[in-house]
C-alpha cells in the first residue's frame, strides 16, 4: 500500500492494492460489476508485487479481474486523443498481450495488433515470422525502443532507414519512463540529454485514464513536480494523461516525421 503510486497520491482507499484485489475476488463470485469498478484504479505498475513480502502477483490478478468487467455501459466510450475509430493500431511491447488493455482499445473501435517483441524477435530471427510493415498502421504505440523490427536494431533505426528523421527538437525536456521501461538510449540519441529523468507513475495505465480520468489526471499533474518543461514519455497513455493535466507532452514518435 505504501508503495502503490496511485494510493499514495490520491489517498482513495478503494485504490489500495489489497482492496482492489478483494473487489476482483468479489466480482468473480458475484458477477456484479457495480462493486468492482475500482479495478480501474490500478495502473499495473507492479510496485505492489515488487515490495510484497511474499511477492503476491497482484497486478496479474487485478488484470484478470478487470478483463471480466468488459465494457461497462455506465459511460460512453471516448475516442483516443489524436486518432479516430477504425484505425489500425500496433502496440509494440516487451510484455505479453495485456488482454484488458487490448479489450479497452478494441472497445474504442481500434483494430489492435499486439507485437510482443520478445517472442517476435526470436520467431523472426528463426525465420518463423514475416516482417511487419509498421507503415500500414495508423498509430504505433511503442513501449520497447529496443525492439528489432524488420531487421533494424531498434525502431529508431528503422524509422531512419525509411527516411524518417527527428523533425522537432526540444531545447530542454523531462524524460518520463513508464513502468518496466528502462532503455533511454535511443531517446537521448535523438533528442539530447533530458534535464531530468522521472519514473513516477503517470496514472494512465490499466484503463485508469479512460474510466477514472480525474484521478489519472491528478497523478499526471504531479509527475513533473510543478516544472513547466515539456515531457517526453515512452508511453502513449502517459502522454495523453499529461496533456489532459495541461502539460506539454510528447512521445518519441510524436517528434519524428
Amino acid at each position, binding site marked *: *500500500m*505504501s508503495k502503490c503510486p496511485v494510493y*499514495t497520491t490520491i*489517498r*482513495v*482507499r*478503494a485504490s*489500495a492494492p*489489497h*482492496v482492489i484485489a*478483494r*473487489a476482483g475476488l*468479489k466480482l468473480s*463470485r458475484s458477477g456484479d460489476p*457495480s*462493486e*468492482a*469498478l*475500482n479495478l480501474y484504479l490500478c495502473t499495473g505498475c507492479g510496485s505492489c508485487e515488487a515490495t*510484497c*513480502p*511474499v511477492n*503476491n502477483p497482484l497486478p496479474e490478478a487485478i488484470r484478470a479481474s478487470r478483463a471480466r468487467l468488459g465494457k461497462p455501459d455506465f459511460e460512453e466510450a471516448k475516442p483516443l486523443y489524436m486518432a479516430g475509430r477504425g484505425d489500425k493500431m500496433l502496440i509494440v511491447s516487451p510484455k505479453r498481450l495485456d488482454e484488458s488493455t487490448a479489450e479497452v482499445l478494441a472497445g474504442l473501435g481500434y483494430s489492435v495488433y499486439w507485437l510482443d517483441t520478445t517472442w517476435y524477435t526470436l520467431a523472426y530471427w528463426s525465420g518463423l515470422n514475416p516482417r511487419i510493415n509498421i507503415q500500414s498502421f495508423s498509430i504505433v504505440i511503442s513501449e520497447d525502443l529496443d525492439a528489432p523490427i524488420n531487421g533494424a536494431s531498434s525502431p529508431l533505426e528503422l524509422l531512419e532507414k525509411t527516411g524518417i528523421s527527428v523533425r522537432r527538437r526540444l531545447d530542454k525536456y523531462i524524460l518520463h519512463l513508464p513502468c518496466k521501461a528502462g532503455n533511454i538510449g535511443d531517446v537521448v540519441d535523438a533528442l539530447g540529454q533530458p534535464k531530468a529523468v522521472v519514473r513516477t507513475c503517470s496514472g494512465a495505465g490499466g484503463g485508469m485514464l479512460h474510466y477514472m480520468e*480525474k484521478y489519472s489526471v491528478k497523478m499526471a499533474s504531479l509527475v513533473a513536480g510543478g516544472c513547466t518543461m515539456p515531457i517526453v514519455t515512452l508511453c502513449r497513455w502517459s502522454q495523453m494523461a499529461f496533456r489532459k493535466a495541461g502539460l506539454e507532452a510528447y512521445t518519441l514518435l510524436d517528434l519524428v516525421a
Partner: protein
Amino acid sequence: MGLKGFLEAVRKVVGSDWVYTEPWMLVAYERDYWPLYVALEARGGVSPEKPVAAVVPGSEEEAVLIVEEAVRQGVKLVPYSGGTGVLGGATGKGEWVALDLGRLNWVEWHDPIGGVVYVGAGALLVEVEEWLNERGWTLRHVPQSYPTAMIGGLIATRSIGQYSTGYGGIEDRVKGVRVVVPGHGLVAVKPAPRRSLLIPLEQLFTGSEGRLGVITGAYLEALRLPECSKPISWLFGSFREALDAVRILVQSRVAPELLRVYDEAESSIYFNADGSVLLGVVEGDCRLVEDRIEIAVGVLGEPEASYAEKWLKERFNVIGPIREAFNAGYAFETIEVSATWGHLYDVYRSIIDSVSSLNGVLIVGAHAGHFYSSGAAIYFTFLLNIENVEHVYWTLWDRVMNAASNSGGSIGHHHGVGRVRGRWLDLEYGLAGVGVIKRIEECLDREGVLRGGTNG
C-alpha cells in the same frame, strides 16, 4: 435532520469528491480482517454491512466539523484508518458512516533531539518507519499488519508489535495525542515524557477503539536505530521448559528485543521441529549484543538451527496459510490472552483442554510472543469447519474467554474488543468496572455518535 442533512453539510466541508456513496467505493469499508466475516465471505452468500457513506477529511479542522455535524444530525460515525483490525472494530451496524482518516497522513518532527515525531492518524506505519529510518530513528513497532496498518488504528486498538519484549507496545510510544471528541471539539494533548496530572488523557484514548473520540494525530517517541541486530534460536524439549527458561532471561532484563516461543504443535507445523522452538532478535550496541547473546546461551544452552532467519523471512505471509486453510474447508481464528508467570502455563492448558472436545474446531497451536517481568501473552490459532462457522465461532470464544479467566489469566492482550469480546468484559473488569467504562463513554459522547459499531 439525519443522513441527508449530514451529507449535504459535509460535502461543503470536504468537497463532493471526498464524500463517497457509490457501492464500489463503499466496499472498501465494509470489513476489516475479522476472520468471521472473511469466512462468511469465502463461504459465499453473506456480505458484511457496508456503510451508507464514507467521508474523508483532509485536515483536523475538517474532522472537527464532520464530527460536530454528526452530533447535530444524529448520524453514527465509525473511524476507519488502516482497516487491519481482526475483531470487526472498524465496521458498523445499521445506518453508519465511515470516517476515513487516510488523508491525515503527515509525518514531521516535533522534537528531533528527543526523537518525538508528530504523525497523522492516516499515516501508514510503513511510511512513518521509513521516514524515521532515513533519519537514523525507528518506532520498532512491527505488528503482523505492518504492511498496511495506520497510526490511528494502532493507537485506537492499543496494538503491539513483534519487538515488544524490548521496546514495549504502542502505549509506550504515545507521548501526546490529538482527538476529536463529540461535543467537545479537538482535545490536543501535548507530548511529554511523563506527566502526573489527574487522568493521563493520552492513555485514556489509547485503546479506546474509536468509542471516546476520533484520533487525528499523535506524538510518538521514536528510538535510535540499533547499531546491531542479530537473530538467534533454540530448540527446547517442551513448551513449558522453554517458557521457564525465557522467564529467567526476561526477569534478568537481558531477553532479546524480539522473542517468541512456540508450543510443540506450532513448532512442528511452522518449523518442522520436534519440541518447542524459541527464537529471538537481540539489538543494540554491538558490544552489548554479543554480551547478551553470551548470557542467553549460558541460560538457554547452545543455539540451534536457523528458525529465527526463516521466521523473519516469512513473518508477513498471512495469505498463504489462510488460503491453505480455506482450500481444506476451514476458516481460522486467532485469540490472544495473557497471564502472570505463575498462571501462564495453567491458562495455556485450560484453553487447550476447553476447546479440544469442541466439534468443528481444530487447535493449530499456540505461541508466546510478548514478555514482561510479570508474565506473557499467548496467542492461539484455531481452524473452524467453515460450513457451520457461525455457531462454532461463538462457542469457541466463550470457552476460551472463560477458560482464560477461570485459570487466572486476562481475556485480551492486544487485539482489542471490536464486535466480539465485549460480551465477556465483565470477566476482566467485573460489573462495576464495565459500568465505569460505559459511564465514561456516555459522558464523553452523549449522543452515541461513535458507538455505532463495536459492542464494547
